């Protein structure tokens, strides 16, 4: 009797988990479908593509990522330029943020040296640095500082000022999460390692860094997200000649709403993709953390 009831409960559970999956998909689609329906309804009623284009016009733009837009290049070109700026700037943020975070997390003296200035600079929005960066770096590009003045390569579109604000936006999440990761290393693991013969250097490389790695990767994910937001804003400002942010601003000026909306969607998609790639790496290396009590 009891086993029959358990079996029924088990079946019930399986049935429920099947329902749950379809539920998740259905639930995820409800709101976007409602938005699209309302959008299409108003687009047809307004009948003004400069104000609100029809859904199919935007989809048509998205379906042609290699087509030149407004004589500025294709979506793909603008995205590659924006992404290159972000990746280069973010690599700088990682190269400085992670080592500095490790040192600040580990050594009280370094912490005291850096934490006041970081606390002052942190609340200052990276966008606020753009005018300053324009004055200092003008419109110099990476290609130019390597002595190549005229170039068709991607480096001709990576302005130093933009690199600086991306670095600034990405640095703090990376740095602060690294510090947090190092400070949260369990004392018992440090003491165990010391009692098993680890010297200071080994303790750092074999215990503190691996233990802090999940937090560092969280920092990378957040930092990359911030950098992606910052670049879009930076590209909208004067001095910009390419990039997906530039494209949507230019579309605004020419009242090309379908290009603008499709561009926004691509910005969201690329941002989500960047976040997903880091999350995949994080899941690979931090598998032990989620399962720890």
């Amino acid at each position, binding site marked *: 009797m009891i086993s029959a009831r358990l079996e029924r409960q088990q079946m019930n559970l399986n049935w429920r988990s099947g329902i749950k999956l379809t539920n998740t998909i259905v639930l995820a689609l409800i709101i976007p479908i409602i938005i699209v329906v309302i959008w299409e309804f108003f687009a047809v009623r307004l009948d003004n593509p400069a104000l609100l284009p029809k859904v199919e016009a935007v989809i048509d733009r998205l379906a042609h990522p290699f087509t030149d837009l407004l004589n500025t290049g294709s979506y793909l070109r603008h995205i590659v330029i924006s992404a290159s700026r972000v990746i280069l700037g973010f690599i700088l943020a990682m190269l400085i943020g992670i080592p500095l975070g490790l040192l600040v997390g580990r050594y009280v003296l370094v912490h005291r040296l850096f934490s006041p200035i970081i606390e002052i600079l942190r609340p200052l929005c990276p966008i606020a640095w753009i005018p300053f960066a324009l004055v200092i770096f003008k419109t110099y590009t990476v290609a130019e500082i390597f002595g190549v003045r005229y170039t068709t390569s991607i480096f001709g579109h990576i302005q130093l000022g933009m690199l600086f604000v991306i670095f600034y936006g990405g640095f703090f999440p990376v740095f602060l999460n690294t510090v947090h990761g190092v400070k949260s290393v369990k004392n*018992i*693991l440090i*003491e*165990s*390692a*010391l*009692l*098993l*013969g*680890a*010297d200071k250097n*080994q303790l750092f490389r*074999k*215990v503190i860094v*691996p*233990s802090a*790695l999940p937090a560092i990767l969280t920092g990378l994910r957040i930092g990359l997200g911030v950098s992606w937001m910052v670049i879009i804003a930076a590209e909208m400002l004067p001095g910009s000649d390419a990039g997906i942010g530039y494209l949507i601003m230019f579309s605004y000026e020419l009242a090309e709403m379908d290009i603008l909306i499709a561009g926004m969607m691509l910005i969201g998609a690329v941002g989500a993709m960047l976040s997903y790639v880091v999350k995949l790496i994080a899941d690979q290396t931090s*598998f*032990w*953390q989620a*399962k*720890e009590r």
Partner: protein
Amino acid sequence: MVFLKVDGIRKTFVGEHKEEITAISDLSFHCEEGEFLCIVGPTGCGKTTLLRLIAGLDKPSAGTISIDNRIIEGLNNDATLVFQQYSLFPWRNVINNIGFSLEMKHISRKNRYKEAQYYINLVGLKGFEKAYPYELSGGMQQRVAIARALAYNPKLLLLDEPFGALDERTRHRLQEELLALWQDQKKTVVFVTHNIDEALFLASRILVMRDRPGNIIEAITVNIPRPRDRRSKKFLDLHIGIREILERILTTNRK
């Protein structure tokens, strides 16, 4: 031959309200080479503090601790400690946890794995080489912790209630395994517990501690041949004897 010598140590802490708390006061004992020493006492009597002092993780406020007549300063390189809480490196699998100390000595991966495998077999975890700590039960995790400590090849093995979080059946099995390892490896062991039964089953000698402040009030040599029968008269008599000592400590302290 005296191996470990603890001589008149005192340990004080600064409390929450800046008052001085004496955890251990004027404590001395000797330990022979190859001895299995158990330390029992009520909770908070300074057993763990004592073990941390022997390991060199903390410094005594006064007195000295020496091994083979060498006074310990800083970390004790001849000893390693198995903690009560799970202390495995969660990002390393079993074989890499056990091989940790060998890696620190820059032993090649091949030789490291060969040696780690020996200890894996010794603690009965064959087949779990690639498992991660989160995939193991509490008992298995402590087996790995013991194997990891043995792979360091310390002269002195310190254990701080290593089986405290385990159920009784697992605890008894691990006690038997630990005894077999001790007889096989001929290490000197200092084992801290608050479980009288555990101490009687394992120890060649038991030191009983009192609290406030922590000190040793009784040393009992356990002359029962191994394997010990928990139901034998001698075992039960000693059990009652130690229980009476501990109860006396608690009642005098309540007054």
